[in-house]
């Protein structure tokens, strides 16, 4: 018998794997950056799934604090990655790394 938290946690791992596949297989930089964001969201979902724990069930605030911090990091990293992608586009006219082709 699986409880709710386990289902969420397993969903998180599956989403993480799909996003990792996307990150590796797509050449387009914006797609790569989006894949990274989905990977991040999967991790946050996993953290969310384990806020309920123990007997009797209480809400654990620590994972929430970690998710909030993680979101801040993700926003900063995404902004940085997008500005870098824009700079590459300005310079080369392409939104991909030179040696990569679309799968």
């Amino acid at each position, binding site marked *: 018998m699986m409880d709710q938290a386990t289902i969420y*946690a397993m969903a998180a791992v599956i989403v993480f794997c799909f996003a990792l596949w996307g990150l590796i297989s797509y050449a387009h930089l914006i797609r790569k950056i989006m894949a990274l964001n989905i990977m991040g969201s999967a991790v946050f979902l996993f953290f969310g799934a384990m806020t309920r724990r123990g007997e009797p069930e209480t809400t654990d605030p620590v994972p929430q604090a970690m998710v909030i911090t993680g979101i801040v990091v993700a926003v900063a990293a995404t902004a940085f990655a997008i500005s870098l992608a824009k700079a590459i586009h300005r310079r080369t006219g392409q939104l991909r*790394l030179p040696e990569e082709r679309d799968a």
Partner: protein
Amino acid sequence: MSDLVVWSICLPLLGAAATFVGPGRLAPAVGGAFALATAVTGAMVTWLVYDGGVMRHELGGWGAPLGVELYVDGLNVFMLGMTAVVALAISVASLTYFGVRDHAASGPGRWSSAGGYWPVWLTLWASMNLAFASADLFNLYIALELVGLSAVALMLIGRDTQVLTAAMRYLLASLMASLGYLLGVAMLYARYGTLDLYLIGAQLTGEPATWMAMALMSVGLFVKTALFPLHFWLPPAHSSAPGPVSAILSALVVKVSFYLLLRLWFVVFADLLSPTFGQVVGVLAAGAIVGGSVQAILQRRLKLLIAYSTVAQLGYMFLLVPLTIPYGGSEAWHGGAWSGGMYHMLSHALAKSAMFLAAAAVLLSVGSDRIRHFRGMAHELPVATFAFALAGVSLMGLPPSGGFVAKWFLVSAAIETGQWWWAVVILGGGLLTAAYIFMVIRYAFLPPSPPAFKPVPKLLQATAMVLALLAVLIGLRAVEPFALLEMGTPFVEAAHVGTHQGEVAE
């Protein structure tokens, strides 16, 4: 006294803020002053721990398991001290480097890269110190992410297309790796309900969730440390960055994730380490040594050659894993292999930063890093050539250099534990290293032919020289660093958990 640890993180951050807000003209002076202060603080923490033992600091008065703790033992301050020395030297070199380069590129008075360099570099330094002082898995994630982001940002001081694409590749690899690490952290927290390294290590059990966390965190950090065959991002990134930045990336940044891997393996997952695991890591390490060295020999550009050499040298550090883990029925952890591997890291940090700074000087002078343009370098740039050769001596592992001491320890550990095949890899790797170092030296001593060499600042060459000399000299006096490493030996388990929970020198 444990406040000093906090200052080793806060001082460079303050410096970053000051150089960012203040006028760009003053950035080198202010940044340099803060770099000096940070290095002195790092050295003082190192001395205090060497003298007085483990230090612990509860940030905001909140202790583990809930609060974030800073924890420094011998291994931490070994890293902290190494960073202080190398980072200070690179700071001095960059004082002259960026001034000269900007002058050559755009004439005086235009946009100065030093204005952008100092805030990012000091942030990177603060993040590295944070990573070395944290004993909390999530805090370590933040530190890793900060190190990754600021390392990529630092590369962007160089502004050609090659740097941009290399930086993008580095950024994507680094973000992917830290998310893998973070998912591992989540799994460990779900299972053990704490983020403290030592508390998790004390109650670890081998079950699927723990194994999965270990796999995710290890592979993530393999990518960040550029362990063969996940090193795809390293050569373009380290070779295209501006001179001092290459030195920072190769000498220090990859060591952060390496250090973290060791902490994870030998503190958190120590009970799960098996001889098989050691042999698997050893095979990757051997692949790095052979693959990286052969690639280095095939390169025709100096900075790519040095970057591939980093891939190879990282392999030596990973060899400490199969050699330290009990092998062949023996129960004991091999402390000599551990110390040898860590010592190799120190001598590589010194030698590699010297090499990249020497390469920066040559690049400024010749205007190209194609090795065939280096004819006559020994005559025109004697100091840089000598620094390169001395650093090479340490990388090859010739006596009396630091690299020799490290390899001596690794080889004797391989023979003592009956794993002679790793000794063959270590010695064979030394020969391959000699091949690519002598390839460069040979061109340096050929009779000069035009193009002419432009003069380069003496200070830049001198810092390369000082670092290279240190890389050789640490081979003569290895007692103190080894004593420090013994304080950080993670497999004296009982003592470790004991000091952490009970009597600690505050």
